[in-house]
C-alpha cells in the first residue's frame, strides 16, 4: 500500500513538468520529424507522404549549406569569445577595486535590453557615413566610410559582434555567482603557501569554475543557434544570405515562403545538430569537471 501511494505521489509531482515537456518539447519534435516526410499542404491539397524527397532537396539546397557554414562561423566566433570575455569581466568585477558596482551594471546592461531594440542601436553604429563607427573613423583618422553590413565579407562578423556584446554580460553573472561561492580560505591557503596569483587562477579558480563553464558553454552553443532576432533588423540575412543563420532560414522557409514541409526538414537537422553538440559537451567536459 505504502509503496503504491508513493508511486502515485511521484507521478503527481512529475506531472506538471511532464505535461509541459510533452506539450512544448516532445510533441512538437515528434510532429516535426513526421512533417519532414510530407509535402507542404496548399489550399485544399493536403500534405502527402513523399519519403525522403525533402531531404534530397536539402542536400541540393545551396542556401542551406551556406547558412550551415555561416552558423558554424557564428558559433566559432561567439562561443569562445563571449565565454572568455564573461570570465574576464567576472574576475574584474569580483575584485575589490573602486567602481565595481558601476562596471557590474555596465556589463550586465546588454542582457536586460531587448535584442530587437539593441539591434536598431547597432544598426545606427554600423550605418555608413554618419554612423558612430564611421564618425570615429573619419573624425579621428580621416578614413573613408565603411559599409560593414552591406558587404558579404563583413556582414556576418558584424552580427557576431552584436551577439557577443549581448551574451557576455549574461554569462558573467553565472561566473560571478560561482566566484563568490568559492571559499576565501583557499585564497588564504594559497597565499600562505606562496602561490602566485596566476598559479592560483590556473590550479584553483579555473578548475572550481568548470561546472559553471560547462553550463555557460552549453548555453552559448544553444544561443549560437537561437540568437537570430538581430538579423531580422540588421541585415535580413543579406547580402545574398551572407549573414543568414539556420534558424533564420527556417523562419524564412516556414513563414515567408510557406514551405512548411521543407522547414520541418531543416528543423530536424537543427534538432540533430543540437542533440549531438549537447551530448558531446556533457561527455567530453564531464570528465574534466570537479564538482565540489
Amino acid at each position, binding site marked *: 500500500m505504502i509503496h503504491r501511494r508513493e508511486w502515485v505521489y511521484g507521478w503527481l509531482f512529475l506531472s506538471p513538468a511532464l505535461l509541459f515537456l510533452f506539450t512544448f518539447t516532445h510533441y512538437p519534435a515528434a510532429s516535426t520529424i513526421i512533417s519532414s516526410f510530407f509535402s507542404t499542404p496548399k*489550399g485544399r491539397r493536403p500534405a502527402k507522404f513523399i519519403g525522403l524527397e525533402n531531404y534530397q532537396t536539402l542536400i541540393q539546397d545551396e542556401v542551406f549549406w551556406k547558412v550551415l557554414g555561416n552558423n558554424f562561423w557564428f558559433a566559432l566566433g561567439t562561443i569562445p569569445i563571449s565565454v572568455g570575455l564573461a570570465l574576464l569581466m567576472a574576475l574584474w568585477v569580483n575584485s575589490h577595486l573602486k567602481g565595481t558596482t558601476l562596471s557590474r551594471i555596465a556589463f550586465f546592461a546588454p542582457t536586460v535590453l531587448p535584442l530587437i531594440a539593441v539591434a536598431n542601436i547597432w544598426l545606427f553604429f554600423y550605418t555608413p557615413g554618419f554612423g558612430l563607427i564611421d564618425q570615429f573613423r573619419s573624425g579621428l583618422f580621416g578614413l573613408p566610410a565603411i559599409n560593414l*553590413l552591406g*558587404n558579404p565579407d563583413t556582414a556576418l562578423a558584424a552580427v557576431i559582434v552584436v551577439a557577443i556584446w549581448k551574451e557576455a554580460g549574461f554569462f558573467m553573472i553565472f561566473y560571478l555567482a560561482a566566484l563568490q561561492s568559492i571559499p576565501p580560505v583557499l585564497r588564504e591557503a594559497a597565499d600562505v603557501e606562496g602561490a602566485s596569483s596566476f598559479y592560483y587562477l590556473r590550479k584553483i579558480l579555473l578548475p572550481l569554475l568548470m561546472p559553471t563553464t560547462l553550463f555557460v558553454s552549453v548555453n552559448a552553443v544553444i544561443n549560437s543557434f537561437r540568437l537570430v532576432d538581430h538579423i531580422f533588423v540588421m541585415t535580413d540575412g543579406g547580402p545574398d544570405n551572407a549573414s543568414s543563420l539556420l534558424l533564420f532560414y527556417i523562419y524564412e522557409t516556414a513563414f515567408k515562403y510557406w514551405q512548411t514541409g521543407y522547414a520541418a526538414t531543416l528543423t530536424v537537422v537543427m534538432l540533430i545538430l543540437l542533440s549531438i553538440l549537447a551530448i558531446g559537451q556533457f561527455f567530453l567536459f564531464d570528465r574534466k569537471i570537479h564538482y565540489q
Partner: protein
Amino acid sequence: MKLSQKMKVNCIASLLLTGVSASASAVDLEFYFPVAVGGAAADTIQALTDEYVAANDGVNIDAVYAGSYGDTVTKALTASRGGKPPQLSVILSVDMFTLIDEEVIMPFDSLVKTDDDKAWLESFYPAFMENSQTGGKTYGIPFQRSTPVLYWNKEAFAEAGLDPDTPPATWEETIEMGKKLVKKDADGNVSRWGVRIPSSGFPYWLFQGLTTQNDVILANSDGNETYFDDPKVAEALQYLVDLSMKHEVMAPGIIEWGATPKAFFEGQTAMMWTSTGNLTNVRKNAPFDFGVGLLPGNKRRGAPTGGGNFFIFADSTDEQKAAAFDFVKWISQPAQSAKWTIATGYVAPRADTWETDEMKAYTADFAPALVARDQLEFAVAELSTYENQRVTGIFNDALAAAITGTKSVEEALAEAQKNAEAILKDYR
C-alpha cells in the same frame, strides 16, 4: 450581486435600444491592416472604420493592426489555416498569387452586381489594377499604394553648378550630373555621393524601375513565368552595378533603405530614389530646398507600383462578404480616399480623388504630391508571381550578389532564372 444586477439592467436596456436594427442580422467583420510608414496610418484607418460603423447599423468592424506587411500576410494565412480567417485584410498587392494559391481569397467580380459597382471597379488607375487582376478576375482593390520617385537636393545642385530645377531625365544624365555632385573631403574620402538607390532587404523593387526604363518586364501577368535572364535585365543590373563600381557616383555595397532619407537630409547624397511614402517625412525634415521628380528614363520612363490592396477572404458568410464589399467601396470613395492620402502620402488610386477640393488644396500647397500621380502613366505592375516571396527572395539574392560583386551580373541572373523556373514550372 449589485454589479450583476446592474449588468442585467444594462443588457436589457441596450437590447431594447438596438433591438430593431441589430435583430438577427448583425454582421461582424474582422479587418487586418498593416502599417509600413508610422503612426498616422493606424490612427487614420481606425478613424475611417469608426466613421463607417457609426453610419451603418448592424455592421461591426474590428480593425486589427497586424504589424508590417510581412507580419500581416503571415497572420492572415496562419489564421486561415486555423479556420478563423479575417473577412477583410490589406495585404501587399504582390501576395495576390500566393493568396489565390492558398485558396483563401475570392474575386470581387461575384460581388459586383449593379452598374454603379462596375463603374466603381473601373475607376482605379490601370497601373494599380495590373497587380490586382489575373485570369480576367479582380482579386484586390488598391488602397495604400505607392511608387518610387526621385528626390533631389536643390542646394547641392546649385553648388555643383547644375540647374537646381532640372533633375536628370536619363540614365546618362544621372551619371554626368552624379559625377559633378560627388564631393570629396581633404582626405580624398567621399563626403557626398551623387545618387542613392537603396538595395537592402528588397532590392528588386527599385531595380524594377531600371528594368522598366530599359523596356523589359520581369514576369508575365499570369505570375508563372519570369524573365530574369533577359539581356535587357542584365543591362539594367550592369548599369546599377556600374553606378558604384565604374562611375563611382553611388556608394558601393548594399545600401540601407532605412538610413536613406537620413543620408539625404545629412547631405551625404544629392539624389535619392525612394517611395512616395517618404514625402511627408522629407517635407518635414529636409533642411534644404528639395525637388521631387519622375525617375530618370532610358529606353522609356518607368517605375514599379507598390503597396497594399484590399482582399476579401473566401471563408466568410454571404452577409459578411456583402458587408466587406460595401466597406471597401465606401473607403475608396474620393472623400475617404483623400483623407487617407493627405494623412499618409500614399498615392490616391482613383482619378476622381484628385479632383476633390481637399486634394486640390493639398496639392496646391505641396505640388510634389502630384509627381507620383503623373508617374502612374509610366508605371508597371510590381514583380509578382506564384510563391512570390520565394521567387522574389531568389531574385533579391541574385541582385545582392551582383551589387556586392560576389557574382557577375550574367551568372547571378542566370542562376536566379534557373531557380525561379524550378519553382514556377508547376504552375503552368
